[in-house]
């Protein structure tokens, strides 16, 4: 049933979805800010262990939809939503879903690096601590070390774990934020333009990291850079004016887009 729906609504279902169960499945999602509709009847299936990129011009709703996946939009009073977003088949907007627990399964990395003004160690340890993931100090140390290793930051900071997280460089801060998100052991990582505040070298470093993380996580990345989408993602979704115009395998999307709007955007005619 899910596959039928996605075949119906998604203009071009990516090939990759034919052989996989979707980790995230959105159905008929509408999101409004007050009366203004930001997302228009959107349905999409997103697979596990792959990077899906959301591209589109500013204000097209890609960030809004991303934030719907871990219910970050709940914090905006004027924001209202209809439809379903399923994580492993379970609608995360059901009454019995706890938003705090949900966010421990769906981590998020923000546009601007936002480490807590605390030590590097505390930044990573905070999540596991509030979720009670570590029995004792040694276990917590291990979680922190593993998260930092997975984020490729451990070697750089192992001698200064007590230094403030804000003392790191921009790229290091963003990797710290990724480590912080990984530390609570999520299944999905949402990234909202994670490289927009970084220089090209730091960006390349993060992109490598995203490629490594793909082995273990379902990653969704919102990006303004089509080159970045082409480099890191296996699937690309093009948003325009609140609608999902086209969704498909990245290599196909960039070589032979189906929709004229996608083609115009990719070739730089607008956006």
């Amino acid at each position, binding site marked *: 049933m899910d596959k039928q729906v996605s075949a119906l609504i998604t203009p071009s279902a990516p090939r990759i979805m034919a052989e996989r169960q979707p980790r995230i499945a959105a159905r008929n999602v509408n999101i409004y800010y007050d009366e203004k509709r930001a997302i228009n009847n959107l349905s999409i299936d997103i697979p596990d262990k792959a990077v899906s990129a959301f591209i589109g011009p500013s204000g097209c709703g890609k960030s809004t939809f991303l934030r719907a996946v*871990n219910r*970050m939009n709940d*914090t905006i*009073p004027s924001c209202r939503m209809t439809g379903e977003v399923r994580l492993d088949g379970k609608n995360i907007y059901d009454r019995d879903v706890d938003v*705090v*627990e*949900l*966010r*421990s399964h769906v*981590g*998020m*990395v*923000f546009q*601007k690096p*936002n*480490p*807590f*003004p605390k030590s590097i160690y505390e930044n990573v340890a*905070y*999540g596991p601590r*509030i*979720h009670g993931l570590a029995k004792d100090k040694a276990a917590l140390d291990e979680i922190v070390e593993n998260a930092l290793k997975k984020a490729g930051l451990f070697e750089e900071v192992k001698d200064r774990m007590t230094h403030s997280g*804000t003392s790191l460089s921009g790229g290091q801060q963003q990797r710290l*934020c990724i480590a*912080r*998100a990984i*530390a*609570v052991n999520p299944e999905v990582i949402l990234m909202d333009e994670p490289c927009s505040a970084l220089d090209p070298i730091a960006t390349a470093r993060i992109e490598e990291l995203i490629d490594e993380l793909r082995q273990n996580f379902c990653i969704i990345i919102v990006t303004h850079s089509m080159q970045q989408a082409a480099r890191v993602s296996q699937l690309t979704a093009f948003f325009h004016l609140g609608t999902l115009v086209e969704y498909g395998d990245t290599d196909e999307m960039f070589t032979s887009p189906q929709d004229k709007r996608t083609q115009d955007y990719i070739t730089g005619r607008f956006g």
Partner: protein
Amino acid sequence: MTDTTYKQRLAKRYAAESRFKAYGAIALILTSAFLLYLLVDIARKGWPAFFEHRATIDVTLDAAQIDVANPGAADYSGMVKESWRAQFPDFTSRGDKKKLNLLLSQAASDDLRQQVIANPALIGQTVKTEVLLSDEADLYLKGQSQEADKAVLEKVMAMVPVERHVSWRLLTNGDSREPELAGLRGAIMGSLFTVLVALLLGLPIGVAAAVYLEQFAPKNRWTDFLEVNINNLAAVPSIIFGLFGLAMFLNLFGMPRSAPVVGGLVLALLVLPTIIIASRAALKAVPPSIKEAALGVGASDQQAVFHHVLPLALPGVLTGAILGLARAFGETAPLLMIGMVAFIADVPKGFTDAATVLPVQIYLWSDLPELTFQSKTAAAIMVLIAILFSLNAVAIYLRKKFERRW
């Protein structure tokens, strides 16, 4: 545009700029001058009040007059007066003796009494003791007034040593009708008790209200209405709070009149808006990305606020609280309404004892005709200003210490 008109315009612009700078400098100089004049004037008037004059005389502690079991009960005043007159055999007439007595303070024997209570072995001996001179003699010696009998005083000074000492009485005594004995201890303790109550009530309630309004409350017409009224409350004249306290705490609840606990309640209401507004501003200044980061790793709303947002806002909250505290210390009008304006000689020992506070003490003393009280008024102002300056210094220190950048 030709070259010359452009240059003229440029010259005009520079002239306007330097004029504006000059206005700023003049304003600054005027304010500094006023402040300096105020402080210097108060210091000049208040400085003498920190000193007193004492004469050293021999007093014979007659064993027959002092009960060893209860040395405090003896008539030291009589003994001191007798010894005092005995120092000056020249003065024989009734009038002269009276003039002699007038040079001594009512409490001239207090120090001697303390000496004997501390060391009963002195009984039966002749001891050297210092006796406090009256305010008139004191003022004459400080060159502030000629009211004392000059001739008598000159003779006395020729025969017994009279010395100037720091007047700790000013800080350790309660209020008194005798100018040379009046001290600030009662007012200082009253102020401390009152402000402590105001702080203990105002800070937690104010911070809790600010956290709720800023972080949890839904943004609707009701909270907008609340916000407007909190701002209005900050602008309500303080005497209105006093009237409210009188009607509510004294008349309705029957709480004790003149008590620091009631004063503290009224001042808590008075500083609440200040604390709420300052705390809200401090909370608002914490970047929302910090809260989002906490929510993003699965912290609940409350955890995000109490683990991250509030600690980061704390320096601002504390600064607001201390400024509110400084306002509470200086507040007079509302306390007049709840009866903290009475003459109270005893130093308050608790929150329900009758008390007065520093600014009210200043108000009371400034009304008294004696010259010494005028000087003591200025001295009390100096003490109050010193307290307020140190509170502000603490506020600045806290802000500098905990200030963070992100």
